[in-house]
C-alpha cells in the first residue's frame, strides 16, 4: 500500500475503483453560520406555527410565548444567511427570480414572506401585550392564516435543501431528511417554550407534545439511516460519529424522552427543564453533524459511485 502526499492512495485497487481516491463531487462550503441558521430557522418556523395556531384557537398565553420565541429566532436568521454569502452585499439578488425546483430559491422567498406576515402577527401580539387588550383581533387571525404556510415550510425545507444535491449522505435520504428536520424543529421549539413557560398546568401538555415529536424524530432518523445503509457511515462511523451517537442521539433524543416520561409520573420540574435543555443541545448537534458529515460524504468517491451506480 503506497500512500502519496496528503494520504492520496496509489495502490492498484484504489486506481481501479476510483481515480486515485480523489473526490468526484464538491462539498458545499457551508459551516457554522449555516448550522446556526438551520437551528434558529427551525425554531422560527415552529414558534410562529404554534403562535398562529394558538391565535386561531384563542390560546392567549401560548400565543404570546410562541410568537416571541418565534420572532427571537427569526431575527438573526437573515443576518446569518447574508454573512454566509460570498458576496453579502448582493443578498437581494435572491429575490430577482423564483425557481420552484430550487429549495434555496423557495426558502429565500419563504423567509422574506414569513418576516412580513409572522412579523405582523408578532407585532400585533406585542401591541396587545403592551396595551393589555387584544389589538385588531380580526387582523391577528388574518396574519395567523397568512403566516402558517410559510412557518410550516421553514420547519423542514432546510432538510430538503440538503437533499436536493449530490452529496450521498443527504441525497440518498431525500424523502426523510425533510421530515427529520421538521420533527427536530418542533422539538426544539417546544423545548424553548417549556423553558419560558411559568404555568404548571401547561407543563404536562407541553411534555405530551414533546414526547410525540421525539418519537417522530427518532423514527424518521432511524428509517433514514436504514435507507442510507453504508452511505450513512460519515455520520455513524466517520469522524462525526463521536458527536452523533453520544450528543445527538443519546443526550439529545433518548435522554430527554426518558426524562419527560419519568417526569410525567413524578411531576418533577427539574427533570422537565433538563429535558428541554438537552433537546435544544441535541437539535443544534443534529444540524452540526449533518452539515459536517456531509462534507466527509462528498470526499468519498466510493460513496458517490455507489449512489450513482447504474440500476
Amino acid at each position, binding site marked *: 500500500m503506497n500512500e502519496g502526499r496528503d494520504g492520496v492512495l496509489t495502490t492498484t485497487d484504489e486506481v481501479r475503483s476510483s*481515480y486515485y481516491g480523489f473526490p468526484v463531487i464538491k462539498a458545499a462550503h457551508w459551516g457554522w453560520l449555516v448550522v446556526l441558521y438551520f437551528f434558529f430557522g427551525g425554531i422560527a418556523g415552529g414558534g410562529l406555527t404554534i403562535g398562529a395556531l394558538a391565535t386561531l384557537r384563542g390560546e392567549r398565553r401560548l400565543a404570546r410565548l410562541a410568537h416571541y420565541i418565534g420572532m427571537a429566532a427569526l431575527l438573526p436568521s437573515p443576518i446569518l444567511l447574508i454573512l454566509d454569502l460570498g458576496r453579502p452585499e*448582493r443578498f437581494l439578488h435572491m429575490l430577482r427570480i423564483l425557481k420552484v425546483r430550487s429549495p434555496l430559491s423557495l426558502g429565500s422567498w419563504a423567509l422574506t414572506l414569513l418576516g412580513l406576515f409572522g412579523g405582523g402577527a408578532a407585532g400585533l401580539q406585542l401591541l396587545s401585550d403592551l396595551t393589555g387588550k387584544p389589538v385588531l383581533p380580526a387582523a391577528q387571525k388574518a396574519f395567523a392564516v397568512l403566516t402558517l404556510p410559510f412557518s410550516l415550510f421553514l420547519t423542514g425545507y432546510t432538510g430538503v435543501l440538503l437533499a436536493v444535491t449530490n452529496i450521498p449522505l443527504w441525497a440518498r435520504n431525500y424523502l426523510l431528511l425533510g421530515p427529520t428536520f421538521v420533527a427536530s424543529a418542533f422539538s426544539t421549539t417546544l423545548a424553548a417554550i417549556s423553558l419560558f413557560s411559568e404555568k404548571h398546568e401547561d407543563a404536562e401538555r407541553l411534555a405530551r407534545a414533546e414526547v410525540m415529536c421525539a418519537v417522530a424524530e427518532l423514527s424518521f432518523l432511524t428509517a433514514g439511516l436504514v435507507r442510507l445503509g453504508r452511505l450513512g457511515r460519515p455520520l455513524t462511523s466517520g469522524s462525526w460519529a463521536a458527536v452523533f451517537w453520544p450528543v445527538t442521539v443519546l443526550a439529545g433524543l433518548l435522554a430527554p424522552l426518558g426524562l419527560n416520561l419519568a417526569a410525567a409520573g413524578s411531576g418533577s420540574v427539574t427533570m422537565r427543564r433538563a429535558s428541554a435543555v438537552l433537546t435544544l443541545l441535541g437539535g443544534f448537534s443534529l444540524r452540526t453533524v449533518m452539515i459536517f458529515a456531509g462534507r466527509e460524504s462528498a470526499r468519498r468517491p466510493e460513496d458517490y459511485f455507489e449512489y450513482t451506480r447504474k440500476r
Partner: protein
Amino acid sequence: MATSKGFLTDTSLCIGCKACEVACKQWNQLPMDGVEWLGTSYDNTHSLGATTWRHVTFAELPGSGGAGAQTNWLMMSDVCKHCTHAGCLEACPTGAIMRTEFDTVVIQQDVCNGCGYCVPSCPFGVVELDVAHGPAPTLAGAGHDGKAHKCTLCYDRLQDGLEPACAKACPTDSIIFGDQDDLWAHAEKRVAELQGKGLNAYHYGDEQVGGTEGVGRLGASFILLDEPHKYNLPEHPILPQDHTFPGLATMAAAAVGLAGAIAWALMGSEE
C-alpha cells in the same frame, strides 16, 4: 437563432500535453493554483475548480501479469459538461446561471452572490466558489471574489465566431468543437471505428448509450475507453432537482401532521 454548440473530447487521441489547460488559463486570465506535486501520474492539477476550467486526468492502470505487463494509461481532458438539464442552473436562486443562445451554461458574474448552492448540485463536481482554501499561493493582487466560476465554453469567443481556446489549442484534435448534432454523428462513427480495432470505446454523454438520463444529453461529451469511474465520472449521474417535489411533499406532510398533533396536545378539548 444559433444552434446547440458543444465539445466532443475523444480520449483515444489525447496525448496528455495539457495545451488545453494552458490555453484555457491564458484566454480567461485565470490565476495559477499553486504548484503541488501530487504523485498521481502526470496530474498535478487535481480537479476542476473555480480557477481551473480544463483538467487533464492521467489514470495509470497496471495490467495483470506482474512486472512488464502492459499498462493502460488513460488520458482525458475533463471540462464542464454543459448539461441539457443542469443541476447548477436549476439550483441557482439568483438566476445568475443561465443558458446561452448556444445552449451552453454560463454564470453571469454580475449577478452571482456566492451562495454556493450550485457547488454540491453539480453531478460532476465542476463548479466551485472562488474562496480561500488555505495557504495556496495566487498571483499577487488576484484575491478571491467569492463567486461561482466554471467553463463558459468561451462564450466571448463564440459570440465573435471563434472556437473555444482549448479546442483551438489541442494539437491532436482530441477536443473538437461544433454543432452538437454534428458531434453526435462524428462520435457514432468514431466509436464504431475504435470498436472495430478491439477497444472498449463508447460515447459518454449520449442518453441512449451509457446514458445520463436526469441531466440529459451532455453538451460536452466524451469518447471513453474504460469504465466511467476510472476517469472519476459517475456511471449514472442524477439530476438533484428531480427529488425536489417528492422531498417537499414528504416534508409538508410531516409538517402538517406534526403541527396538527401538537395543536391537539397543547390546545385540545380540556378547557
